[in-house]
């Protein structure tokens, strides 16, 4: 360890320097104010005091509030959606549907099957965040959300029953790889990066939607009420409970995000949107083909 100069002038300089350790100046500014001491001496002085436990660091810590960051995250999601999901053949078919047959019944049933698979597995990816310890307000929001979501697979099962698929059939069913990929990706994030998992909830729950484009397309295509009715019940619960704004509500409760975290959240958004886009592409590809309606474990 280096020692400080001990002549009288230096001791006075040290005394003045100590007086400047009031939390208002940076170390560089303190050194500048005392040219008789070498900057390295000032740094050594502060380091020794720190080691002795005599000083605190009063420099502001760089962070941004979640309520502000989420606005940028939402914009990024929207930009990615415009290039992917909004161009997806499944969504083009729904938006272009004008009359009977425009959304083929098999495609609509397929969409319900894959949605059922997703909701049936909701606990796989919601459960890891129900115990979110870092933030009580967020944990309470998530628990309330899960209580409202619980059992929605049963609502869709009514539509599947109408289409001739029983509970037993669905126990034997295999989701499309894109559906399972999305479920496991969400479960992975819920375990390993809960903050990023929160950013996905808004889009999954129909962020910014006043109505459901798929349901409207089914109605314009004159699909039977036995099929569409349960979908409406499910959609209305989500819209009524404002699940689309869940991500916003969560991030409003998060007071501090550091820059590395914000950068990590931003760079992963594209991958999530691609996984979600692939979910729709999978539905479109499989249920527009001649393949059997249900993929079964018993037929593997």
């Amino acid at each position, binding site marked *: 360890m280096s020692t400080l100069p001990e002549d009288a002038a230096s001791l006075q300089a040290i005394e003045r320097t100590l007086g400047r350790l009031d939390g208002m100046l940076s170390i560089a500014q303190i050194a500048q104010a005392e040219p008789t001491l070498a900057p390295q001496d000032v740094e050594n002085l502060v380091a020794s005091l720190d080691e002795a436990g005599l000083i605190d660091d009063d420099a502001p810590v760089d962070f941004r509030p979640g309520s502000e960051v989420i606005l940028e995250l939402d914009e990024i999601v929207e930009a990615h959606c415009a290039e992917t999901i909004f161009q997806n053949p499944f969504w083009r078919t729904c938006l272009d549907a004008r009359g009977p047959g425009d959304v083929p019944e098999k495609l609509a049933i397929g969409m319900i099957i894959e949605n059922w698979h997703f909701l049936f597995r909701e606990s796989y990816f919601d459960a890891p965040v129900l115990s979110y310890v870092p933030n009580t307000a967020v944990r309470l929001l998530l628990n309330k959300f899960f209580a409202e979501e619980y059992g929605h697979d049963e609502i869709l099962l009514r539509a599947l029953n109408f289409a001739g698929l029983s509970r037993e059939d669905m126990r034997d069913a*295999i989701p499309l790889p894109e559906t*399972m990929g999305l479920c*496991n990706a969400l*479960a992975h994030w819920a*375990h*390993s990066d809960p903050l990023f998992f929160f950013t996905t909830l808004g889009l999954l729950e129909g962020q910014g939607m006043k109505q459901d484009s798929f349901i409207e397309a089914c109605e314009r295509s004159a699909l039977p009420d036995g099929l569409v009715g349960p979908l409406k019940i499910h959609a209305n619960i989500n819209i009524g409970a404002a699940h689309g704004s869940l991500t916003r509500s969560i991030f409003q409760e998060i007071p501090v995000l550091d820059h590395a975290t914000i950068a990590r959240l931003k*760079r*992963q*958004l594209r991958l999530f949107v691609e996984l979600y886009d692939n979910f729709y592409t999978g539905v479109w590809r499989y249920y527009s083909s001649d393949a059997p309606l249900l993929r079964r474990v018993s037929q593997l």
Partner: protein
Amino acid sequence: MDSTLAGPRQPKFRNQVRAIVGHGEAQISLGARSCAFEFSEHEAAAVSRLIADLETGGLTRHDLASRSSVIADKVPQLLHDFDELRLLIESDPQRIGHALSGTQLYREVRRLADRMVGRIATSAFHRALTEGRASRQQLIGYALEYYWIVQSAPGLIGPALGSAHSAAERRLLQDFLKSELGHDRFLAMALKSVGVTTAELEAHQPLPATFALGASLGIYGRQHPLSFKASLFLFERAQPAFIDAFDDRCRALGMPDAFHTPLRAHANINDEYDHEDISRQLMELEHAVDAETCAVVKRHIAIMVETMIQQEEQILAYYGQELTRVPRIFN
């Protein structure tokens, strides 16, 4: 939840139950515990029949009551009491589970994966290599995706250690985890030789199918350990013909040795440690697997195989585009 416990559909006395029907009283004992109930003379035959039927099993509650019709109205309460006293077990063959050994389940899983892969013939990426269609960018893309899986592997495997309940399983998983550590450095060096920087590698986002594969393996490790164990062989299969074709194509494109040599070295490590056998070794430790678990494992494996096929298609498609930067970096 139902407020009462559903009793056996076809009740049967536990094997250790001893029942003695005497004059006006039946005594039923199980070890040191015993109970008794009284009946009138005209009920004696019905009580004896009920006791005999419960010793044999195989009859529904309704059958039991109608065969002992004189005491039919008392049979439900008696059955309820016997159940409360833990004297009854289920004898309905439909409700008695069906089980497979882990080894047998693994045989079925291997066959299922072979059938699925067989349907697709050779892998799309392998064909692109042997037919000389795979571009430099697609080879780098393949290595980037491989890198992502390898650098994630310890984090995906680690949680499975928490549910290893025997010394043999802990040893297998720990050795497996150890043998997977540090491989990302090999591959990072390979990618560096073709201009991918450390910062780019850190920011690279895998393709959706690559991410789905890694996430699925990791999530099964946490949520469904048997699916995790059964999937490992899919990641660890030796593919010497593929590695040869990869090397040949790299040379044909004039790519540096420093790019493809580490990839071959990594493949050789997998051979040396007999990684492919890890699934069989872990599954051998499972003594009895119920029907639902077998179905879940098969479902997961089938989807994993499909996702691996999709991954090759995505690599060819994404890295086959004109890209200004090969690693996938957004925002």
